[in-house]
């Protein structure tokens, strides 16, 4: 850790947000209340009564994600788990989607333009739900993933004799090869050596391939081990975890920001991957990697504004849920248990989806979208596209939103397979509409996540203006005054205007044009007085 000592190091490992937070906290502790603060506060509070409550940059209000976007039996289970754990339904919904992807990825793909088209999306899904410590994330993941654990155990038991036979055969073959190699070295003449060499060749080619008990998912894992798991388990693996380890590895926080990200990127896109690190060299044709992470918002703040993480495109692949925490509002006197019939149905249907899963990877089956489903999906894709341009609602998260139509197609296929079973032929309109509904809700959650991640540049600028105004008690100022005070940040008026516009949209500030005689009007900014009143 000796190389980590100053604020530059802090910015590199935890982002500029961590630097701003540390310095801001130091300043906050220093600013002792002034003698006339109460009188001033009262005055400001009075002015503030005409203003709505400000929504600070990055603190976007998010819609609830209801369980009814899921197919019947998954909806029942997610609803029961959310009720039993008194957690926001969004957490159970996101984990449920990742569990479905864990069962179905690599075996199926979706082709929005029809199964004969060459554009296909794999069914791997990356979900990330942010909830504070103590909000029962582990319990939700445990309940939703329990049938997977049970299935792994059943498979392990079923395959035990076969694995033992395979292990013994491989062990004998290896020992025999060792002995033959020694014999070949000590052979009296070339003829004998050649004969033994042929025996070794024969032995090696007859050695049975290694059989392992199948694993569906893992918890905290390193990038290297994940690569090996993909090789060992038929090119598919899922990470269902409430540990921050893997996310921090992706952010490069354990490797000076230089983590090997290929395994993640290729695992999401299903691109071929060469592996030379596991116990054997292998060529993984279509790796499938699913994430179902439930982390504390502080972890997102820790990797705040890590440009490298954002630039790698990994953040853009996650579907974020940032629900409001229930902590502090739970009824400790009430206990809802998950009905056993719901649990049993959920487990049976999940195991049904896993039926026919091969130990060896084969070509995935492609599901096309039905005609009406394709139209609904295209309408959604078009709607997203139009909001990604200059000054569009999704301009600042365009890297994320450009992947959203693809994610909608993936989710639609997962919902279809869950509802109709592995024999589904194509993705219906109903499943597509549910997927689109969910994706629309996720947009606000992504805005909130990227705001927290400090990755939205306009939010970061807007936050800096709020901070400057609060530190200097600037309730009202001209645009020029603001730009001059923060000229290091706002080299162009356009950038400042964007940030001010963002503040105006969220009731943090109001922008007025004050006319000047014979000169262009002055742009004046009035900050929401509620920002200048001490809470409590």
């Amino acid at each position, binding site marked *: *850790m*000796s190389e*980590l*000592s*100053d*604020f*530059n*190091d*802090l*910015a*590199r*490992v*935890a982002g*500029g*947000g*961590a*630097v*701003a937070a*540390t*310095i*801001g*906290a*130091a*300043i906050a*502790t*220093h*600013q002792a209340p002034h003698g006339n603060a109460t009188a001033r506060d009262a005055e400001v509070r009075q002015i503030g009564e005409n203003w709505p409550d400000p929504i600070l940059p990055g603190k976007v209000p998010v819609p609830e994600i209801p369980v009814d976007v899921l197919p019947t039996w998954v909806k029942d289970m997610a609803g029961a788990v959310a009720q039993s754990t008194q957690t926001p339904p969004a957490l159970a919904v996101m984990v449920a989607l990742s569990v479905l992807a864990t069962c179905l990825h690599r075996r199926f793909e979706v082709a929005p333009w029809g199964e004969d088209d060459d554009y296909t999306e794999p069914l791997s899904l990356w979900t990330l739900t942010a909830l504070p410590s103590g909000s029962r994330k582990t319990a939700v993941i445990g309940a939703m993933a329990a049938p997977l654990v049970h299935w792994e155990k059943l498979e392990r038991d079923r395959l035990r004799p076969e694995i033992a036979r395979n292990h013994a055969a491989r062990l004998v073959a290896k020992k025999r090869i060792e002995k033959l190699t020694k014999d070949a070295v000590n052979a009296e003449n070339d003829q004998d050596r050649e004969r033994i060499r042929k025996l070794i060749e024969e032995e090696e080619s007859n050695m049975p391939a290694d059989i392992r008990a199948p694993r569906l998912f893992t918890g905290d894992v390193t990038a290297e081990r994940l690569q090996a798991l993909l090789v060992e388990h038929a090119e598919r693996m899922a990470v269902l975890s409430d540990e*921050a380890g893997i996310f*921090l590895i992706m952010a490069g*926080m*354990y490797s000076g920001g230089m983590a090997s990200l290929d395994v993640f990127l290729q695992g999401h896109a299903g691109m071929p991957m060469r592996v030379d690190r596991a116990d054997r060299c292998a060529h993984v044709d279509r790796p499938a990697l699913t994430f179902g992470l439930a*982390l*504390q918002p*502080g*972890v997102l703040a*820790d990797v705040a504004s890590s*440009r490298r993480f954002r630039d790698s495109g990994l953040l853009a692949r996650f579907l974020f849920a940032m629900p409001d925490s229930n902590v502090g509002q739970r009824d400790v006197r009430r206990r809802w248990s998950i009905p056993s019939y719901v649990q049993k149905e959920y487990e049976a249907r999940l195991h049904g989806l896993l039926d026919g899963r091969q130990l060896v990877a084969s070509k995935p089956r492609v599901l096309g979208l039905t005609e009406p489903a394709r139209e609904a999906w295209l309408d959604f894709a078009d709607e997203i596209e139009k909001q990604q341009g200059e000054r569009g609602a999704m301009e600042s998260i365009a890297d994320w939103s450009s992947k959203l139509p693809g994610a909608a197609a993936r989710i639609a296929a997962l919902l279809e397979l869950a509802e109709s079973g592995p024999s589904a032929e194509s993705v219906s309109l109903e499943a597509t509409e549910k997927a689109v509904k969910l994706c629309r809700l996720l947009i606000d959650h992504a805005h909130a996540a990227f705001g927290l991640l400090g990755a939205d540049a306009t939010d970061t600028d807007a936050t*800096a203006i709020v*901070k*400057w105004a609060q*530190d*200097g*008690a600037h309730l009202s100022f001209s645009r020029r005054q603001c730009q*001059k*005070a*923060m*000229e*290091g*940040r706002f080299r162009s008026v356009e950038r400042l205007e964007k940030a001010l516009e963002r503040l105006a949209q969220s009731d943090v500030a109001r922008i007025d044009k004050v006319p000047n005689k014979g000169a262009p009007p002055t742009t004046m900014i009035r900050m929401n007085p509620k920002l200048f009143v001490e809470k409590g």
Partner: protein
Amino acid sequence: MTAFYPDDFRKALVLAGLPMLKGELVADGVLHRYQVEGDKSGSKNGWYVLHTDAQPFGAFGSWKTGQSETWSPSSAETMTEAERSAMAARIAAAKLARDAEQAAVHTSARQRAQALWEKAKPADGTHAYLVRKGVPAYGIKLLRQQLVVPLRDVDGTLHSLQFIGADGRKTFLTGGRKRGCYHAIGRPAAALCICEGYATGATIYQATGNATAVAFDAGNLQPVAKALRQKFPRLTLVIAADNDTETPGNPGVTAAHAAARAVGGVLAVPKFGEVAHV
């Protein structure tokens, strides 16, 4: 008897970490400059004054490290009253000579700094050090592939330069004044941060928008903080420490804490523990 004193004086130089690389000591009561062992070839950062007459006395130091020491073969307790006052006069004379020499050294460095600063071209952020640190160039220049950071006093007078190589190696202009000098990034509004290095300062400015003064090392935090407190009596001064947890005594935090106390500022310390334990 007189030959004994130069040998003793040499030992004192070695003990203070300022051994003479070569040459004879001249015991004429006048200030002489010399090359300290381990210093750059051709530099003359060491200085001494030596008397070896009836009342032997010496003073020595380094412009580079800022050390200033006195030497005498006998302790003040064994001296007579007359000897003590003669010694005090000599100490005062040596101090005057040192100050005069230091002023001359600083003036010369100031002129060289000005000439080099004018010769240097504005840096644009593509320098390997800036890229590695992930910070832009704020008011610094480029000269012979080295970044040049100016050291100015509170009046804006340029006193010296810091050079930063692509590999991060930092050197200062020989003989230049550092104490109380800093490099300012941004204009102060409500709070002003003071930190040790350029990359740290640029990071803080980038992340917080607060003006930042780069003091160049831990020892200079307090002089810079005091100078800035005098200039900006109403500002909140934030001393942004280097958290040298691996160095005994954590000199970064210790010096920053002392600086914050001296000027009624606040201390901000980067913490790394929480990052790894989430």
